[in-house]
């Protein structure tokens, strides 16, 4: 694929297959304008799909949504151009996002299970089917035998029978295999592209493609909550009030547990610590620290209230955590065993990465164990506990049923969105994708309410 300026040949003759798996970049010439425009259009489609999913749209609605998005953004009067646009935009985005992707293994082999083998494991296959509430397998259903490594999703969910390293997957589970293959191929390609980009291309394309690529990677897909922002209007008083009014349930729960137990395990410290680090601005923290310290009577600080900043700085974070933890483990052990990891979160230790707050996706996919309080309450709480927590947040019984309905269908972010709407009494069209977004949206609404009532 080559980018050329303005003039170009017609691509009409270079028709490519209509079901592309994007194995290799096409040998096409692309106008520089199109390079960017196509990518933007594709991003609009992807963003639309992502929004639809987080709004909990049903498969059928999703089909329609995708068709509409595709029509609106990717169509072209010439049929061949559609295919080209599809492929070009895919590869541009690959270049754009290659810097954040991970490596993965690659490989695939299918083997249909013979009749005699099927008979010998029929009972086990039946047991698996029953365990995931699927119809019992019959002799005319084709099963494939693949190394378990190739179907991690099915293994993780115990949705396949595994024996001596092989997973026996039913024909209707093959999509998982293909998805895994595509994902792994893509991530491998991304990492190769990344190497090429950083080693040679970025320099060569310094004045041409590089600015476009850099801009694309940061410009779209909604606000970026990894960038610090200040909320200087937060009331200096009422920190607990703030946790109650504007923290999403996951953070509120951690916060309350910290207050109660004066301790959080690693997962909880990370989830809450990073959330607070960025967004709940300094002033909020001062209050909390002051509050806590005066409660324990260990320190008397009062001049801090005047410091306003864009995030809890390292010193204050240390103070904050220490105030709680020292009640449980003592100040000396805090300094010795916990301070490091807080400095680490702030990029002052270890590999010196300035860690960003966790997104909903990351929180939902975490696996809290015994004694842990992190994770997504909509996913990880029992129904009973979730109901109790929601009613404590002030969700009424009608709202509660709506939320529980989403939880049952495993739309956790949507459940959180509905909670937000129930608590704030106003809609949240973008859906909740990030705890810090929940916080900032909540603050916006509360502040506008304040202004209107004053």
């Amino acid at each position: 694929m080559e980018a050329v300026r303005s003039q170009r040949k017609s691509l009409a003759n270079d028709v490519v297959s209509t079901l592309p798996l994007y194995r290799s970049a096409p040998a096409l010439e692309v106008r520089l304008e199109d390079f960017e425009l196509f990518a933007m259009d594709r991003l609009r489609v992807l963003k639309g799909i992502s929004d639809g999913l987080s709004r909990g749209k049903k498969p059928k609605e999703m089909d329609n949504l995708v068709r509409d998005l595709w029509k609106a953004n990717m169509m072209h009067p010439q049929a061949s151009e559609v295919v080209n646009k599809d492929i070009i935009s895919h590869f541009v985005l690959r270049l754009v996002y290659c810097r954040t992707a991970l490596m993965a293994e690659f490989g695939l082999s299918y083997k249909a299970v013979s009749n005699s083998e099927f008979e010998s494991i029929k009972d086990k296959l039946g047991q698996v089917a029953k365990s995931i509430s699927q119809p019992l397998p019959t002799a005319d259903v084709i099963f494939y035998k693949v190394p378990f490594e190739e179907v991690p999703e099915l293994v993780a969910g115990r949705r396949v029978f595994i024996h001596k390293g092989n997973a026996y997957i039913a024909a209707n589970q093959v999509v998982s295999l293909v998805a895994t293959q595509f994902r792994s191929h893509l991530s491998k390609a991304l990492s190769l592209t990344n190497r090429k980009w950083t080693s040679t291309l970025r320099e060569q394309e310094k004045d041409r493609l590089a600015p476009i690529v850099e801009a694309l990677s940061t410009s779209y897909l909604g606000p970026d909550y990894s960038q610090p922002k200040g909320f200087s209007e937060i009331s200096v008083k009422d920190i607990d009030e703030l946790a109650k009014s504007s923290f999403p349930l996951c953070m509120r729960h951690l916060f309350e547990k910290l207050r109660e137990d004066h301790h959080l395990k690693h997962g909880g410290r990370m989830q809450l610590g990073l959330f607070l680090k960025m967004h709940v601005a300094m002033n909020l923290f001062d209050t909390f620290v002051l509050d806590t310290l005066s409660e324990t009577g260990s320190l008397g600080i009062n001049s801090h209230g005047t410091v306003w900043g864009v995030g809890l700085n390292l010193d204050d974070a240390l103070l904050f955590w220490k105030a709680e933890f020292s009640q449980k483990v003592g100040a000396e052990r805090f300094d010795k065993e916990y301070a490091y990891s807080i400095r680490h979160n702030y990029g002052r230790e270890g590999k010196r990465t300035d860690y960003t707050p966790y997104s909903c996706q990351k929180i939902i996919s975490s696996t809290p164990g015994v004694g842990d309080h992190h994770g997504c309450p909509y996913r990880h709480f029992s129904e009973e506990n979730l109901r109790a927590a929601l009613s404590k947040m002030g969700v009424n019984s009608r709202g509660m049923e709506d939320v529980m309905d989403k939880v049952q269908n495993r739309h956790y972010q949507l459940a959180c969105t509905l909670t937000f709407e129930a608590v704030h009494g106003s809609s949240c069209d973008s859906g909740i994708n990030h705890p810090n977004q929940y916080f900032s949206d909540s603050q916006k609404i509360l502040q506008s309410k304040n202004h209107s009532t004053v």
Partner: protein
Amino acid sequence: MTREEVETGMDEMEIDGGEQREGNAVPEGFNANYLKVYYGKLFPHADMFKWMSYGNDGKHPGCDQSYFVRREFSFTLGNDIYLRFLSFNSASELENSIKEKCPVKIDIGPVYSVDPAKRRAYAQTGDNVFTPVERELIFDIDMTDYDDVRYCCSGADVCLDCWPLMTIAIKVLDTALRDDFGFNHILWAYSGRRGVHCWVCDEKARRLTNEQRAAIADYFRVYKVGNENSHKKVSLTGLALHPFLARSYTEVLRNFFETKLLSSQNLFSSEERYEKILDMIPDESVTSELRGKWQENRRSSISKDDINVARWEQLKHLLQSGKHKGQGLRRCIEEIVFSYTYPRLDMEVSKHMNHLLKAPFCVHPKTGRVCVPIDPNQCEDFDPTTVPTLSKLLEELNMGGVKADADNDWDRTSLGKSVRIFRSTFLQPLLKSCKEEIESAYSSKLQQSKNSISW
């Protein structure tokens, strides 16, 4: 990657368990001098090197001579000094460094794409070439995670009444790793205080991606919502149990629960304890019936049978009786057994290639006990309270007199048995298959290049 991860490991181990510092098992003067003797005379340096080389230390042209040097070791020295990203060129380099630095703890990390000691030089190039490429699949099971289902001790303590929980974990995981996942080279080791470590060392296991590791860890997970925020610790849904869970239940869990833990942990002996179990039964009529019986029972208490066994039988009988045949209640019995027996893994340890894990044969600084290997086929006989301690070994060494044949020093102590288990159940079969793999990979590569030449 990070030091943080190690710290996390230490953190969970030392803080969250409500740790006890007095440690009466620690021999007086667990100190650098004792440890020096241990590393000098007893620690099986050569075996560790053989293991970590996976056959690549041989003369065969297929051997990857750079393999061992790319492995990360890390040492924790006294006064909390922590050395990451150590690497060694040879068996003697490793041995000399251990003897010289005398670490209180040795951790083993992944094999990286390049020598981890030189990672900074590679970092200059801008490519992220410094990345883990191989790592044993590891599992870490810690008794503190069972504190809500054991009444004999808590936190850092273990005794023969709760140790069966570890035996169960070994049996369940070992069988699944071999029969389901097809792994053959699995090392189990006592963690030195209150848990066990598992190292799956097949080549296939060492090359798993993080995603695949996470999938295996999830396969083993039944505590979907494993904390106090959730009502049920174990939720078994669906019309049947997955074959893996069904096998674990019938072959291990049920038996251990009924014949050991019920009575040894006195699971039904007090109102507080049986209420915890009744909580898992969602049918009010069943629970109130049982509650009624047991409250009376306590007053009369004439039964000769173990009260725990008797009450468990009553509970089972009522749940399985005609009027409560509902599928949901049937599953209750299994859920209770799973809650009180099923292995509880530290998931994060297994999910990532770059997690460090303490090497076997280290001495636990708090207990003085050696992290000895456990033969999974004899795991029922393993007794953590008789694992050799540093001071005991030194005593044995002294009694044996001063002999010059250093090779057999451990054979004169109770460590000898552990080294033999390590070799016969793990190292020898492992090295045999490593050798075969290297040879066959080499000859097929040779064949390939021959073919391409003749073409």
